[in-house]
């Protein structure tokens, strides 16, 4: 401390050193201030800091280079004075009052710095950026830019906290006073959401912080504590997820546990389905929400249609649809118009989606469910739709199967409880005739196509008709059976049916010939079956106990 009465001189900034009257001090301008680049701005922050350090110890750099004895007398004097000015009173008291006064006069005149910036011994005193780079190596412009970002972040954080406080307050007030109209608006929430996004981006830029999950950033989900996946240590079939998906599922667990049925949960299910449409539970939860909130059924269906077209192989979609229909149907059951209208809508969509994936098993199963549920047995539109599909692709077995169901399971003309492969006396003759003709027409288009042959046979059985009733038709596809060079089989299914027809008539020889030729030439891959059929001709009982060894022996024979 200087002696009382003298004000302690303030250390002056580096570039505010005034020219001094003292000759000693005039000559004793700090060496470093004339050194290298005081005129050019520092390239980096570290350089700037170094300059400031140097400017606080004007003779230090020179002394370190040349030693105290290498300095001029004026410089030495300056250096010593600065040291004394910085030291404590006890050290200065060795100088005696007169010397101290002189010291302070000199210090004042020469504007010697009294306080000194210590060069920081810590490495990276400004810290490191997200790439591990020393911030001190930034240029001043970059540094200012970084500082500006940090300020922005602080401001945003304050605003974000203000939002949270406001939300808390309005919630509390709403509980006490339900008439109070003050609520946090959607635009405020939206603003906060964007604010958080900006904060996350800044944090990532400045500090390399990991971006928080989408839901963690969303103010709408602040009140939910997500339940993370717990995997037992070293488990045998451990699961690892991409982050967005993991986050979404952890929120799903939380809301499912709380049985929360709300619009935001509906959005959450859509979000998850978008990432993994085969996640079983999320569909079920969505169904609960739709039903609990009594959401407009048409809206949900419209959404489902979109998803179905994007995920053709997914079957949960169809079970979801089934649940919706089961839930919705009671509300329209009383009105035939409403049912018809709904049926038409469904048929339109089914046509759309079947165009994309003509044999999709889940879609067709749903279709057969719909026929039963909405009573579409006599729907001309339904029959027409199926005919159109068969016209497009006569080999579409799903369409053929659906047609059989539509025609022959119609409660109006079928007997409940009849076995599938047995005659039904209730099957009307004109219908049986029509179906026989239909099958035959389609067979002509592609004689080796299995579906209409199965269909034809099924119709004949259902109608209680003899297989022989179509013999002329069938025989047309097999020419010169058994005649060496002339034998021509346009359809193996025809030959198969012909064998049955011959057997039905009692013509074992011809039946056997047909079956033999199938095994020998026309359908060799199924010789095991054809040989068994031949045995059946001999004695049905023997065939019933037919073993592989027996057939192998017959084949070898």
């Amino acid at each position, binding site marked *: 401390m200087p002696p009382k009465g003298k004000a302690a001189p303030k250390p002056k900034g580096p570039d505010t050193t005034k020219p001094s009257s003292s000759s000693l001090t005039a000559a004793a301008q700090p060496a470093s201030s004339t050194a290298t680049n005081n005129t050019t701005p520092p390239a980096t922050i570290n350089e700037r800091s170094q300059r400031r350090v140097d400017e606080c110890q004007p003779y230090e750099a020179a002394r370190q280079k040349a030693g105290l004895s290498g300095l001029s007398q004026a410089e030495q004097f300056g250096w010593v004075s600065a040291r004394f000015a910085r030291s404590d009173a006890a050290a200065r008291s060795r100088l005696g009052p007169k010397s101290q006064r002189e010291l302070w006069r000199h210090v004042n005149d020469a504007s010697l710095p009294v306080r000194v910036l210590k060069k920081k011994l810590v490495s990276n005193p400004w810290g490191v950026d997200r790439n591990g780079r020393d911030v001190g190596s930034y240029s001043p412009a970059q540094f200012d830019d970084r500082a500006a970002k940090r300020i922005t972040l602080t401001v945003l954080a304050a605003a974000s906290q203000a939002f949270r406080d406001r939300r808390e307050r309005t919630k509390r007030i709403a509980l006490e006073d339900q008439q109070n109209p003050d609520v946090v608006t959607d635009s405020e929430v939206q603003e906060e959401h964007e604010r958080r996004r900006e904060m996350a981006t800044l944090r990532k830029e400045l500090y390399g912080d990991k971006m928080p999950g989408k839901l963690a950033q969303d103010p709408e989900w602040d009140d939910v504590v997500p339940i993370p996946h717990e995997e037992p240590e070293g*488990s045998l079939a451990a699961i*690892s997820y991409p982050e967005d998906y993991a986050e979404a599922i952890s929120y799903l667990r939380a809301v499912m546990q709380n049985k929360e049925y709300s619009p935001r949960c509906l959005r959450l299910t859509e979000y998850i389905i978008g990432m993994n449409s085969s996640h079983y539970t999320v569909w079920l939860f969505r169904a609960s929400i739709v039903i609990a909130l009594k959401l407009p059924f048409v809206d949900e269906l419209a959404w489902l249609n979109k998803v179905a077209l994007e995920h053709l192989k997914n079957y949960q979609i169809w079970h979801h649809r089934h649940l919706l229909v089961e839930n919705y149907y009671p509300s329209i059951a009383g009105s035939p118009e409403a049912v018809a209208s709904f049926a038409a809508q469904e048929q339109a969509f089914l046509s759309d989606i079947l165009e994309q994936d003509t044999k999709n098993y889940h879609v067709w199963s749903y279709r057969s469910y719909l026929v039963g549920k909405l009573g579409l047995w006599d729907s001309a539109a339904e029959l027409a739709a199926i005919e159109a599909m068969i016209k497009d692709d006569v080999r579409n077995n799903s369409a053929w199967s659906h047609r059989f*169901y539509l025609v022959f*399971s119609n409660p109006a003309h079928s007997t409940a409880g009849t076995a599938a492969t047995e005659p039904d006396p209730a099957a009307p003759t004109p219908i049986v005739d029509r179906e026989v003709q239909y099958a035959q027409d389609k067979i002509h288009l592609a004689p080796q196509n299995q579906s209409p042959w199965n269909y034809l046979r099924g119709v004949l059985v259902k109608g209680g008709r003899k297989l022989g009733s179509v013999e002329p038709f069938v025989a047309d596809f097999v020419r010169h059976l058994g005649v060496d060079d002339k034998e021509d089989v346009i359809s193996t299914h025809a030959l198969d049916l012909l064998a049955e027809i011959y057997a039905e008539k009692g013509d074992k020889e011809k039946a056997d010939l047909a079956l033999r030729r199938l095994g020998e030439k026309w359908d060799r891959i199924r010789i*095991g079956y054809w040989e068994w059929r031949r045995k059946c001709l001999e004695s049905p009982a023997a065939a019933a106990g037919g073993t592989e060894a027996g057939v192998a022996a017959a084949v070898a024979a």
Partner: protein
Amino acid sequence: MTETFSTLPEELQLATSAHVKYIQSLDTRKDQYEYWLTEHLRLNGLYWGLTALHLLGHPEALPRAETIDFVLSCQHESGGFGAAPGHDAHMLSTVSAVQILALIDAFDELETRGRGKAQVGTYISNLQNRQTGTFAGDEWGEEDTRFLYGAFNALSLLGLLHLVEVDKAVDHIVACANFDGGYGVMPGAESHAGQIFTCVAALTIAGRKDLVDVERLGRWLSERQVAGGGLNGRPEKKEDVCYSWWVLSSLEMIGKTHWIDRDQLIAFILGCQDNERGGISDRPGDTVDVWHTVFGLAGLSLLEYPGLQPVDEVYCLPKSTIERVLRR
């Protein structure tokens, strides 16, 4: 016939050690996209992998203790099992759990460390709709003949089939029969090899195979074999290795396995292997997965390909397992 296979080129032989390594590597593939998408199949996947290993004659390749731990960690208070720890209980994963425990002979552990056989039986039987006889997959009520078969499979292994209305269930299966001899997922639905397997196997467990139109069904099944030797699941669809199981086991159950050309089917299945990295795919050249691996191997076993353990056509478990479990 069997000795000719060892003279075939390498790609037509069974790459046993590659398959074992492939299955062992499955639980380490956590970085693969497909892995987390199929979380809801985790326990089922374990059953497929383990069964494949047993059929290959390498039951020790997956650690038994950890397997039991994992399976039990999927069990809920209800007795049912979820597909993975933390997943809700479901019929399909419950059946897989029972099959796994049967396979590694761990029903005792189920009693002492799990919720016990009786509780599992209760869970399953509670999923039956006593009016229609059908089974749901879980409390959400989706019904499918797969669940019916699963219920019969698991309950019979546990010795608890009497807990459910077998006759009503059988009636439902009959209602799913179609004009072409096959069975669909529900009444009116198209005949499909997978559904046929579940229906015929369920009827077999119930002792009601007499209800099957053997000739019609056998004919339909034999038609599944296409020119290349592989089997498809429905008329005019592509062949797929997994139908080597669904179609073949159905034929086996009705005693008509010889209605398929065995050599051609064997060649097809072997052609679907990845001889280097292991595993079997749906068609030659496609990506392998554990589902097609187990069903390809099971198909080969049914065809008595040498070096494989005999598989039970009803349960899709080694015959030795079924003998041990059902004899007790």
